[in-house]
């Protein structure tokens, strides 16, 4: 049978869902929409013949956002009607949360009530009479705690005995209600709450007034927020680095070993350079994903994330985003992949999509080796180099702001500012099991869903740059021969007229194409295509040695230089905008559930980066800069 979980935000609904579903979760779009919800087949976990669906938080059946509208429509649609509803409410918010329950009962839903946060109620010096509540409402009531798993076995036993009604539930959507109706419903739920809760509020744990005075203080609160963000950012940036280096080194060892062991043929190459290297490029993102989600789940479970979002909401709302966009955007400066996954904490779909749209513009760490090389070309002075690099970060923020501002005014992303009601969850000590469970499930979701496509694309990209198979004469550079005679090279030749306005020839075009595997690949593929003598990666003189050779590269058959001030500036712009990262495209598809979004983003940014680079190169040349 189908059971749907319904409840207000912060009531513990998703925690209960995760406790029941464990790791058997699939993400499903509501029919005909892009709003997602999670589903789980409870046969796997508890041998229950139940398909459990989670829903986004609802404070009432009168929807206030587009997402809530979709959820309410889903609850009432004939085709998807659940056989039973599990309503989840917070005991410390009994009267407010019973409002939704009362509406559900009025509409005719068959439901069972799960009451969470009874431990907090007890700390407040109060108790809830569950039997009295069940009698008053006329529905079964369970005490559940999805964090500690208290009450879950009892709920599971109950669900095992539950049978669907012979007839589907007959429900009627609520009519447009009046203020009077709202007030009398509140009066009713308040009376129920007063009847069922015993004891007077002694130590109101839930109000957090004293903590909030500091955490939400315009000065101290902001300092705490900045400190928390600095910790997160430096962690994903530096703690992840040794793990990523190790994965990178391990991949190289495995690839080389495979090539040395298996008979030398194109099939060995596609296995080693396509599949194994592809697996490497999937796994290399895991350290950053795990670290980011450990921090995010910790902050979310503690109740801090909502508070941070409130502090920073004003400046972000000015460009159509909201306070919850901050952590994903900041993470985008390390890597777009965990950043896009982190955007799930943005409840409003429109703001989530807008955030996903501009994340790839944030200057990620994979751009650094490319920037470093190109900036070394521009200047030898370390101070000037630093200034240009800072300028690139500034450019990335500026572009993100401009793109978000423009898109927020288009039809697809337009909404009136103001629909922002952020309920602050109770501040509490996060449970490590909850944090670990959520980090694990996000990482597994990435591996299972994005992993296979990334490997597939990696094989395709390898084939494009290495097929058809070439015979290499002794003494020739095999890698150079296969790439320079590949399909990619043919495409490079064909599109040379398009690349020329950017100031590069077909070899530069091929190197740029190879950079779609990952931006940092550009440096080595450029060295390969222009037959530069590539220094070791850890050589401190790496960039200077390469730049020295780049200055001598000329258009084939002429003495006209390719890498000039204007082309390098154009390329810097190109790299700051182009979505040169296939794994990001795959994750964007995974996070939005649509290829359309991912491909629009890919082509949109690639075209924008190309047009911008051409404008820069041509304008500079008109002004007499080579």
């Amino acid at each position, binding site marked *: 049978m189908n059971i749907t979980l319904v409840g207000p935000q912060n009531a513990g609904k998703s925690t209960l869902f995760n406790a029941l579903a464990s790791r058997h979760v699939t993400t499903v779009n509501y029919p005909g929409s892009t709003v997602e919800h999670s589903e789980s087949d409870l046969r796997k976990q508890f041998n229950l013949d139940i398909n459990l669906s989670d829903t986004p938080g609802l404070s009432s059946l009168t929807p206030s956002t587009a997402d809530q509208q979709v959820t309410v429509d889903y609850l009432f649609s004939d085709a998807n009607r659940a056989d039973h509803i599990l309503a989840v409410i917070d005991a410390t918010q009994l009267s407010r949360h019973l409002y939704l329950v009362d509406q559900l009962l009025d509409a005719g839903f068959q439901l069972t009530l799960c009451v969470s946060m009874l431990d907090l109620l007890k700390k407040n010096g109060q108790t809830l009479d569950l039997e009295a509540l069940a009698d008053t409402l006329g529905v079964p009531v369970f005490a559940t705690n999805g964090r500690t798993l208290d009450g879950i076995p009892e709920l599971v036993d109950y669900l095992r005995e539950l049978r669907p009604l012979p007839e589907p539930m007959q429900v009627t959507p609520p009519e447009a209600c009046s203020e009077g109706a709202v*007030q009398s419903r509140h009066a009713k739920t308040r009376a129920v709450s007063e009847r069922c809760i015993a004891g007077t509020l002694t130590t*109101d744990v839930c109000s957090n007034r004293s903590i909030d005075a500091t955490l939400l203080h315009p000065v101290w609160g902001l300092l705490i927020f900045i400190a928390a963000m600095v910790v997160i950012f430096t962690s994903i940036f530096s703690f992840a680095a040794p793990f990523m280096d190790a994965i990178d080194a391990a991949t190289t060892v495995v690839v080389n070993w495979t090539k040395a062991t298996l008979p030398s043929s194109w099939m060995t190459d596609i296995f080693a350079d396509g599949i194994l290297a592809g697996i490497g490029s999937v796994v290399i993102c895991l350290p950053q994903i795990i670290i980011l989600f450990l921090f995010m789940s910790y902050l979310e479970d503690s109740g801090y994330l909502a508070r941070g979002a409130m502090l920073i909401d004003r400046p972000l709302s000015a460009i159509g985003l909201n306070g919850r966009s901050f952590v994903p955007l900041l993470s985008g400066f390390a890597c777009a992949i965990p950043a896009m996954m982190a955007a799930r904490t943005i409840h409003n779909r429109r703001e989530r999509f807008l955030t996903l749209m501009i994340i790839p513009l944030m200057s990620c760490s994979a751009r650094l080796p490319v920037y470093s090389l190109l900036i070394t070309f521009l200047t030898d002075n370390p101070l000037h180099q630093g200034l240009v690099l800072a300028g690139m970060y500034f450019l990335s923020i500026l572009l993100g702001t401009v793109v978000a501002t423009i898109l927020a005014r288009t039809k697809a992303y337009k909404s009136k500012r103001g629909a922002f009601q952020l309920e602050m969850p109770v501040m509490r000590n996060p449970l490590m099991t909850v944090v670990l469970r959520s980090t694990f499930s996000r990482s597994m979701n990435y591996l299972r869903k994005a992993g296979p496509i990334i490997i597939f694309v990696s094989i395709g990209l390898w084939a494009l740059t290495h097929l058809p198979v070439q015979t290499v004469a002794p003494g020739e550079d095999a890698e150079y021969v296969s790439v320079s005679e590949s399909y990619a090279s043919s495409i490079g030749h064909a599109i040379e007229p398009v690349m020329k306005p950017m100031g590069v020839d077909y070899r530069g075009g091929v190197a740029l194409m190879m950079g779609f595997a990952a931006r940092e690949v550009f440096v080595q593929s450029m060295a390969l295509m222009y037959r530069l003598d590539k220094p070791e990666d850890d050589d401190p003189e790496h960039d200077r040695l390469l730049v020295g050779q780049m200055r001598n590269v000329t258009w084939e058959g002429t003495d006209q230089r390719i890498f000039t001030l204007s082309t390098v500036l154009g390329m810097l712009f190109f790299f700051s905008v182009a979505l040169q990262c296939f794994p990001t495209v795959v994750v964007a598809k995974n996070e939005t559930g649509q290829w359309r979004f991912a491909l629009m983003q890919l082509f949109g940014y690639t075209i924008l980066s190309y047009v911008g680079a051409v404008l820069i190169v041509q304008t500079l040349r008109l002004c007499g800069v080579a």
Partner: protein
Amino acid sequence: MTIETMTLGNAATITGLEGPSATCLQLQELGFIPGSTITFVAKSLFRDPIAYQVEGTTIALRQEEAACILI
């Protein structure tokens, strides 16, 4: 009086709601009902949004919406 006259730490009783009817209804469904006590808990940068405590919970509202609440 409008809610804008409240300062940090102030508590007041909601006397009514005035403004776009959809917003007023939503706010009431959330718990901002006439007769309830509302407390100004915290303000963020630029005094927007502001966090209010009502009915035992803390809710942050942007200025446009909060302006509908009369005290």
